[in-house]
């Protein structure tokens, strides 16, 4: 019988409804666990115990009246510090928003509140979601619960680590080039990036508008399914939000034993893929092959263009999205400025970290006069080719199986001197954002250092139900969720 804080949301929901446990008890257990392991993990930028317990009490009252709002009622959910919650800090792990509190709720936050979830703390991340290790946070480095000297991945490192460490039952993050899937893989939890447009971006601090998506972290696929159900919705406030029928994701898991046709893209198994990771993924593929699925070799020929295309488009959009942090209205304002232009220079120089500055400069450059056609426009055209690669393969298969990350979590500090090396760690996740497709990472093993390895399943547009079912099929037989880091 595992600790309360390591139970799944589905289990806990049942216990809560039956009255065997209260949300206050559950939340207190999560709080206690957090206090116990936070000195080691440092997943949270802040948390408010009193506020969490107040929410828990409210959930208990709903349940007592027989008015539970669903499976998330009373369940503590960690929030990446990039999603607006009314009255809470919204620093995006940057100094430039150090003193900023959001006066409004993100639509995803409203959905969580309406589902009765207990919103718990503000989770660490790479500054403005720019990074793959959470080392770019201006405040602290989060440790991977499986090995405290290693990174948890990024940019949603705090979200992944908190779920892996039992400091939250669920956590919400964001994914622009892999920022949910990669940390999920590195921390041994499940993370899903939905199809672009499925979850409203209103209230998600923008990094790259055409790539960003909010998504769920949990320890099991079923938990991810019920979490996704609560936050996927069309939103009038987001012009890129899609109007589509939201299926019952939890029921869709019953489709697990369909005879899936699963594609394996050859380009994802070349050099740079760590051997132990390769073996784990190949074993996963074998599992599907001998359990009623057909494995098909496919090719995504433009794969090696994904990283340059991403870094042109994402940085261009970011350079514009981050222009608003200027020291005038609500962001950090330097007190050393001599005039208004200087105010911009000094406030932004003081407020932004190195990686953010690097990407703003790069993005400004690719949009500048004389270079727009050669870089930004060209990159958008190649992006279409990348998407076409996927759509062509989907004519033959239902989903694709790939590694999530080329390696397991590396040591803190190892990559931070070499931004390019860091960029290359996104190789398997980035195309999925460029193509706007849904992708999930599910734990599929450990290496000899007991570091988690993740399997990525990429689906057709709006086919989250399919990739959840396929992931569920795998998880059901392997049960990696029952293993926890020793903290």
């Amino acid at each position: 019988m595992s600790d309360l804080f390591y139970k799944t949301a589905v289990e806990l929901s049942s216990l809560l409804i039956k009255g065997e446990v209260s949300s206050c008890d559950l939340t207190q257990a999560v709080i206690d666990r957090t206090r116990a392991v936070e000195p080691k993990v440092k997943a949270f930028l802040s948390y408010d115990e009193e506020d969490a317990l107040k929410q828990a009490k409210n959930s208990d009252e709903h349940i007592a009246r027989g008015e539970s709002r669903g499976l998330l009622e009373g369940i503590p959910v960690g929030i990446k510090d990039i999603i607006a919650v009314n009255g809470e800090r919204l620093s995006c792990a940057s100094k430039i928003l150090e003193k900023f509190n959001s006066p409004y709720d993100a639509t995803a936050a409203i959905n969580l509140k309406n589902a009765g979830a207990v919103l718990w703390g503000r989770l660490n991340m790479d500054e403005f979601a720019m990074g793959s290790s959470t080392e770019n946070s201006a405040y602290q480095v989060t440790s991977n619960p499986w090995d405290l000297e290693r990174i948890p991945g990024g940019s949603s490192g705090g979200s992944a680590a908190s779920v892996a460490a039992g400091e939250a039952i669920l956590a919400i993050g964001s994914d622009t080039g892999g920022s949910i899937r990669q940390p999920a893989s590195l921390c041994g939890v499940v993370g899903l990036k939905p199809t672009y447009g499925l979850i409203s971006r209103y209230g998600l601090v923008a990094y790259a508008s055409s790539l960003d998506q909010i998504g769920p972290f949990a320890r099991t696929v079923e938990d991810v399914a019920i979490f996704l159900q609560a936050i996927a919705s069309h939103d009038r406030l987001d012009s890129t939000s899609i109007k589509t029928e939201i299926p019952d994701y939890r029921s869709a898991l019953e489709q697990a034993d369909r005879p899936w046709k699963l594609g394996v893209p050859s380009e994802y198994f070349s050099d740079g893929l760590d051997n132990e990771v390769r073996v784990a993924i190949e074993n996963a593929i074998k599992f599907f092959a001998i359990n009623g699925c057909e494995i098909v070799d496919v090719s995504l020929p433009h794969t090696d263009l994904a990283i340059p295309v991403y870094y042109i488009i994402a940085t261009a959009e970011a350079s514009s999205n981050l222009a608003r942090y200027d020291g005038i209205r609500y962001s950090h304002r330097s007190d050393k400025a001599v005039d208004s232009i200087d105010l911009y220079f000094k406030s932004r120089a003081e407020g932004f970290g190195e990686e953010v500055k690097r990407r703003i400069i790069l993005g400004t450059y690719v949009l500048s006069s004389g270079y727009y056609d050669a870089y930004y426009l060209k990159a958008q055209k190649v992006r279409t080719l990348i998407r076409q690669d996927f759509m062509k393969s989907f004519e033959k298969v239902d989903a694709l199986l790939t590694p999530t990350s080329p390696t397991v979590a590396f040591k803190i500090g190892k990559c931070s001197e070499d931004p390019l090396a860091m960029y290359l760690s996104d190789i398997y996740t980035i195309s999925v954002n460029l193509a706007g497709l849904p992708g999930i990472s599910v734990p599929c093993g450990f290496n000899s250092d007991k570091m988690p390895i993740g399997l990525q399943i990429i689906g057709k547009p709006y086919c989250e139900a399919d990739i959840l079912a396929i992931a569920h099929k795998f998880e059901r037989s392997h049960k990696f969720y029952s293993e926890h880091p020793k903290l």
Partner: protein
Amino acid sequence: MEYEAVIGLEVHVQLNTESKMFTRVAYNYGAPSNSLTNPVVMGLPGTLPVMNKGAIEKTIIVGLMFNCEIAKISKWDRKNYFYPDMPKNYQISQYDQPLCIGGEVEIELPGSSRNIMGLHRNVKLTRIHLEEDTGKSTHHALDSTLDFNRSGAPLIEIVSEPDMHSAEEAFAYLTALRTNLMCVDISDCDMEKGQMRCDVNISVREVGATELGAKVELKNLNTISGVRNGIEFEIERQIKALKNNEKIVQETRLWNAERGLTAAMRSKEEAHDYRYFPDPDLMPVKIEKETIERLRSHLPEIPFDKQRRFLADYDLPFTITSVICPDKRLSEFFEEAVALYNKPKPIANLIANDLLRELSAAGTEGTLPLSECKIGPKHIASLARMVDEGLISKQVAQDIFIDIFSTGDEPEKVVEERGLKQSSNTAELEDICREIIDDNPKPVQEFKAGKENAINALKGQVMKATRGKANPKIVDEILRKLMIK
């Protein structure tokens, strides 16, 4: 050496939509500072724009009115630059796929005198696009303050070709823009309230030259007359410079209305690289043919067409049409009155002279709007009918107009109550006329000698004696009859 000016105008007009361009917050002039804001307006982290459909339809209406080609697909682009009154430090605008392309605006130049209609010509347009407004900065001695009420309001930008050649043409163009835009009710075009703003591009070249001279951008032209005066000054300045063999610097100059001159902006004007790219938060707009046809079917008659029609159908002179036709409601008022009593000229006169005079006097700031006026077309029609049928004299009609305007009482009632009916009693009038003739031998003599005007003195006396109630036409007839004898 003869020089000509080449002038293009960029006019920004605020649309009178209920909410701002990309978020549902109201916009109105004069609200307490920073009260018309929300997270989207303030560019808070995580906020997103949602396009105002009404603003797009109003822009299409303007485009149809000016014979523009309406884009089948239009999109939004970000114009990136830093300025304190820009909450996002980019403006959502339109770069290469604006809503309206080409088009033209008919303008009317002043005639050789007030009574004569001047030449009409068409000024070509380059494009019309939609964008969001910035906030407003006010500069003080030690600091500047920012008011974001205006930020995000929908603006259309109307860009003309460099197709004008004098301050007069520019003035006529602005006037025509105002009249047309007010006619389709998309803006009040009040320059003082910032609802219409104008930047001018001027260059000067030798007559006959094909290449354009160095272009100067003029800003800070805050009134329509400021536009004319500023252009006049700038053209003169440039011509003088060229005559002195000086080069014209391509720069931005600000019009200083108090001192009546333009001056180069102090800060060095670098060419802005706006790094335009399609806004990834907004979808491109597809405009269906049905939408265009629906909007086109609701287009009102444009003022110059009305002016031509009023001349043709009602035979009204320019002095009258130039006053009535630019005002849609006034024109409607006129035609409703004519529908009640078919005498266009007297009705037009009552409206253009008496009604407008009273409206102007009654307004607290400017003219009282017609909607707040107590009298309607039927009052005017009644007055015109009573004069025409000889029931009252023109003089009486003028006299009671002011009262009717302020009370809204029906003219028939007022005439009845005050016993103002014109006397056409021939017998009575004959007696009075005989008396006047007897008392005034000199004018009678002059009249009989051939001086026609002399009869007016006699007529005047009769009108005085009857306290204005005599029917002047009949008096005239009787006097002549008596004097011929």
